[in-house]
């Protein structure tokens, strides 16, 4: 009777120790486990170069090219405007009868969450520059009650806007068949300080926008680490 008890105790102790070990190690690795990183999206190229007689392979990531637009305050907005910052961008038009109001109400959530974060900016491009002039965008931004330095609404040359949309991997084009005259995706694109695309989210889906809101600190942290 006693022997059985002893072995039972032994078993119990062992399993307790095992459980403790298992509990302990994840605890140790905790900081590493939450060290989530975001993927770098888009096509990449391997570029070979020779350094000290040895061939080194560099990975060239897809990068958003230089751009120049005008914002709601008639100021020029270029890649320089976002230097050292990360940003979330989308494509819309103010008279859009379909998905834009929803996108904008979701973008407002991102705005409200991070309006005091100096290293994050929002950038909305109009895809109907003919109608959405600086004055129209100004009115729109004022009605939303958002600050220009935090949320840029830009207009510009139509072809340049459609070209840059492609570089953000977003669909945007004119289509008379579509309600409102344009076909475009409701994507929110998260861009890092090197103008690389780190996330694409459906801006009409609150769950995906939740994911974006959670991914922003991950990218901000990466940026902080890189600067050290």
């Amino acid at each position, binding site marked *: 009777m006693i022997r059985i008890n002893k072995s039972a105790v032994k078993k119990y102790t062992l399993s307790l120790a095992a459980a403790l070990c298992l509990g302990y190690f994840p605890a140790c690795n905790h900081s590493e486990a939450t060290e989530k990183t975001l993927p770098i999206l888009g096509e990449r190229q391997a570029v070979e170069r020779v350094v000290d007689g040895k061939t080194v392979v560099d990975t060239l990531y897809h990068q958003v090219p230089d751009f120049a637009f005008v914002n709601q305050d008639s100021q020029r907005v270029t890649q320089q405007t976002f230097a050292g910052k990360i940003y979330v961008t989308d494509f819309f038009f103010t008279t859009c*009868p*379909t998905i834009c*109001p*929803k996108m*904008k*109400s979701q973008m*407002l959530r991102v705005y409200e969450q991070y309006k005091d974060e100096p290293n994050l900016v929002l950038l909305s491009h109009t895809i109907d520059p003919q109608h959405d002039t600086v004055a129209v965008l100004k009115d729109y931004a*004022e*009605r*939303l009650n958002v600050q220009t330095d935090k949320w840029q609404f830009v207009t510009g040359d139509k072809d340049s806007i459609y070209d840059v949309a492609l570089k953000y991997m977003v669909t945007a084009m004119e289509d008379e068949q579509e309600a409102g005259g344009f076909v475009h995706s409701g994507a929110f694109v998260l861009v890092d300080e090197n103008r690389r695309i780190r996330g694409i989210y459906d801006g009409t889906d609150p769950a995906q926008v939740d994911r974006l809101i959670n991914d922003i600190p991950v990218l901000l942290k990466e940026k902080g680490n890189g600067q050290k």
Partner: protein
Amino acid sequence: MARNKFAVLALSGLLLITLTQCFTNKKNEGQRLYEANCQSCHMEDGSGLRGVIPPIAGADYLDKHRDELACLIRHGIEGPITVNGIEYNQPMPGVETMREDQITNLLNYIQTNFGNNNPRYTMPEVEKMLEKCPPHRK
């Protein structure tokens, strides 16, 4: 025997009525029309878009302009309007193809949902309101 026949006839009649009721789905027409025509701008919860698109939920406009709403749905609206003390100025397209009974159902859905508790419309009432704004094309 005749009695039995009658019972079968009555039962199958009842069954038919039940089935057609199930499949017409008339009951939720207001909600379906809202989802198809209004929701993308006024949102699922009727909250609209801050400063740009006026809310439907708790909007004083619905009661104050009760008699204009039918025409507003048919022909849309352009120019500034004030809802709950805030001015909005975003054109709303009309839905010319919507019939009088559909407009009635939609209005009643709007007036009694999203936390709104305004009186419902009768169809003759809506028809009368719509006389002021005949559709441009039929």
